[in-house]
């Protein structure tokens, strides 16, 4: 009886207006501001930083960690953590290079995808079905995968021939700006992950499961399925990162990327995603990856020692976690 024009019925609220509080709640703003400040500072204090080839280099150096960090973001959003992500990727490069040597590049790629997906499923299975803490599960699988990689590689490295396996390292020009297909693939991975996480039901369920597992279960969400999907997808993303790694350096080395797991966590945290799960953005992680890339490159250009760069990155991580904690406390 009450139609849409019935004055007794409150109208649907008007679209939200601009508000400072709303802007401050945007988690992307802090990391973005940090990135811009870093860009400005390094442009001012060095002559070499703002050159197109240097900016292109930063992007290319960020590709491997950047792709991996997409998977790490999803896992951290479910209130998990993946310490094995780098080891899975390195194993992926060895499998890719060895299989490609025997049966061709495409078989190599597919085998690596399969192996990485299975390892992701193992992590996911232990977390989901045995309900073990992700930190311990992936610490265990990290150790196992790292050692298995050494055994498989026999302490040798495996150079790969130019071709499909190095395709992501191929350069092309946009105006005077040279970049690689790997950079495009990284940006594509972020775009797809952003879409899936924010615009589809499955993505919202990732946030729900990470934010409040009990409420998610009571809402009828199949938490186990969500977790399994996230871990398997992360395995696939590790394989993609392995492909990109061979594009950058066409040599599969079992001792490469030793700190990749920690570097992805750094990127995720600096990007404003909460380690407690359910809060954050994959675009923040992209910004976080770029902040680390810019900081390292810029400090190198400014002649600062590598160890000081590590100290700077460490401080940034602690700062990011502090901000996250403060935001959580204010909201509770």
């Amino acid at each position, binding site marked *: 009886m009450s139609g849409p024009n019935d004055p007794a019925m409150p109208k649907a609220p008007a679209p939200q207006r601009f508000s400072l509080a709303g802007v401050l709640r945007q988690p992307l703003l802090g990391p973005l501001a940090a990135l811009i400040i870093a860009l400005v500072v390094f442009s001012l204090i060095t002559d070499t930083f703002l050159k197109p080839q240097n900016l292109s280099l930063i992007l290319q150096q960020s590709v491997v960690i950047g792709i991996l960090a997409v998977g790490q973001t999803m896992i951290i959003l479910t209130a998990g953590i993946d310490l094995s992500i780098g080891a899975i990727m390195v194993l992926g490069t060895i499998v890719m290079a060895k299989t490609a040597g025997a049966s061709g590049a495409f078989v190599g790629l597919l085998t690596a995808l399969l192996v990485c997906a299975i390892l992701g499923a193992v992590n996911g299975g232990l977390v989901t079905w045995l309900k073990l803490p992700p930190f311990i599960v992936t610490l265990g699988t990290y150790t196992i995968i790292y050692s298995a990689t050494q055994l498989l590689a026999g302490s040798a490295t495996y150079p790969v021939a130019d071709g499909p396996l190095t395709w992501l390292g191929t350069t092309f020009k946009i105006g005077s700006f040279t970049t690689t297909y790997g950079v495009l693939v990284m940006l594509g991975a972020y775009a797809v992950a952003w879409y899936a996480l924010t615009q589809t039901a499955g993505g919202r369920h990732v946030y*729900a499961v990470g934010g409040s597992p009990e409420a998610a279960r009571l809402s009828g969400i199949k938490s186990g399925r969500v977790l399994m999907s996230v871990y398997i997808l992360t395995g696939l993303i590790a394989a993609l990162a392995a492909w990109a790694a061979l594009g950058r350096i066409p040599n599969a080395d079992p001792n490469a990327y030793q700190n990749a797991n920690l570097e992805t966590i750094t990127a995720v945290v600096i990007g404003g995603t909460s380690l407690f799960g359910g809060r954050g953005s994959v675009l923040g992680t992209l910004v976080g990856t770029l902040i680390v890339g810019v900081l390292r490159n810029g400090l190198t250009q400014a002649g600062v020692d590598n160890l000081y760069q590590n100290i700077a990155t460490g401080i940034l991580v602690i700062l990011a976690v502090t901000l996250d904690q403060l935001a959580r406390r204010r909201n509770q």
Partner: protein
Amino acid sequence: MTAPVLQARGLVKRYGNVTAINGADFDLLPAEVLAVIGDNGAGKSTLIKALAGALIPDSGQILMDGEPVTFHNTRDARAHGIETVYQDLAVIPALDIATNVFLGRELRRKGFFGTVLRRLDMPAMRAASSAHLADLKIGIKSVNQAVETLSGGQRQGVAVVRSAAFGKRVIIMDEPTAALGVKESGMVVDLIRQIRARGIPVVLISHDMPHVFEVADRIHVHRLGQRAAVVRPSERSMSDVVALMTGAAEPTDEERSGGS
């Protein structure tokens, strides 16, 4: 006696050596507010969880409109039109209101974006959530805001709106006012009345006797894992009901058998 919408017969649930409910019966009539009360440990939560599909009883039967039904999880109960509002676990604080209302039952866009790209129809979900909020007269400015920005009563309002939007047959509320202040509790009591006015029966689990007497049509008293009595608030005083709850008084034969 009108035919009950939701019934349980002889439900039993054991946790190891502890028997939480021991042959519990339950009857919910159309368009009534049935309060379920009982001392801590009387097994009322277990009974309600079994009716909501949140746990599977060891034995006994649940019936809807006289037909036996089996709930393996909350999804099964929801598919039968039973919605539950939990104390404070029901909403995801970091997600916005519209997403919370439709969590697990999201709407997708029509056409290519929806079927192939599986894109959510956020505008439709926001509009529907706003309409439901307005319908129950819950004053919230924007359904885009995160639930954590709301007060306790507003959060509970979101949970009630969700259950009212989808609960076609039965709405169960587990201690909906336990965490709320006086004014906000009054708001929830109003919501319960509005839902009843639409002809949907409400099961209200509550410790708050004044609220129970204010809104309930009948009171199911749970004691020692069983239904001890069903009484009418018009026929019994609060102290009578407390006495029944603790075993200090005996119910009449009619009350013991589940009332009229």
